């Protein structure tokens, strides 16, 4: 094995550790989120989205997808919805938001900060969940749920984005590892 591939292997191992760390963080934040009372069970503050925002600068596509799936799994475990149709909402929301955020970070990093990425991710997640609720649960009446749902997500995603931006710019741990990876 050459020195080059050896270091690549090592960096892959490190990134898998990041996945584990961030997934654990997502699990913890899902628990915190679950403790906060909300009028509708699937109305989310989006705390568990934080690891996905921070992971943007640390992970490659596959690891990022893995992190997203682990987040869904963790949310399902914490809320007890893992074997019910409600997990579909979690799945749809997380996958669409992860997809949008990853694309924005990969191709739009110069024009958009983590705040914008966080808002876009929250909107993508909430719109997906609203469309799912339109199809699965409420039909056209989903429009009555849309405004509070979207507004809460919008507000909390700004706060989360600001926090993530601050963390990323201050954390020496993040700076060290984000520089190691040669991400676009």
């Amino acid at each position, binding site marked *: 094995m050459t020195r080059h591939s050896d270091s690549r292997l090592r960096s892959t191992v490190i990134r898998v550790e990041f996945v584990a760390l961030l997934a654990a963080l997502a699990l913890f934040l899902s628990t915190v989120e679950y403790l906060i009372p909300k*009028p*509708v*069970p*699937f109305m989310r503050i989006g705390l568990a989205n934080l690891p996905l925002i921070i992971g943007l600068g640390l992970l490659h596509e596959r690891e990022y997808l893995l992190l997203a799936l682990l987040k869904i799994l963790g949310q399902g475990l914490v809320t007890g919805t893992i074997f*019910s149709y*409600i997990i579909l909402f979690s799945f749809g929301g997380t996958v669409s938001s992860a997809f949008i955020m990853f694309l*924005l970070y990969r191709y*739009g990093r*110069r*024009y*958009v*900060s983590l*705040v*914008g990425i966080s*808002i*876009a991710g929250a*909107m993508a997640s909430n*719109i997906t969940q609203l469309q799912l609720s339109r199809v699965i*649960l*409420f*039909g056209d*009446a989903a*429009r*009555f*749920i*849309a*405004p509070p749902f*979207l*507004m809460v997500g*919008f507000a909390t995603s700004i706060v989360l984005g600001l926090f993530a*931006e601050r963390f*990323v*710019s201050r954390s020496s741990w993040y700076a060290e590892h984000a520089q190691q990876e040669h991400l676009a």
Partner: protein
Amino acid sequence: MKQIRLGDIAIFIVSIAIIAFSLGRFTDFSGEPQVHVRTDGGEFIYDLGVDAFATFNGPVGETSIEIKDGKVHVHDSDCRNKVCISAGWVSRVGDWIICLPNNVFVLIEGAVAQETGGVDDTAF
């Protein structure tokens, strides 16, 4: 890295526009308020002005609602969290209560012309 960028502003504006659009749809109602109850067994409509008590079946059991003095609430439900019961009484058009586990959705809607007025209002 810290300052707000062009893309942020664009995303911000688009998000506000989407929320404004959803609000515009939200306020699009008129007429006498009715209580719409969507369940696994179909949709039921009650007049908010007439006191009533009704029970619906869902995946986890029974959910009962009570209409009294122009307000509606979930009286009892077999779900685990009881979020629907703690939602309390609602009375305004656009208000809603959901029991997600039992798939019961209570919504106060303004009655539209087709439901109350009959054919003559619009037919030529």
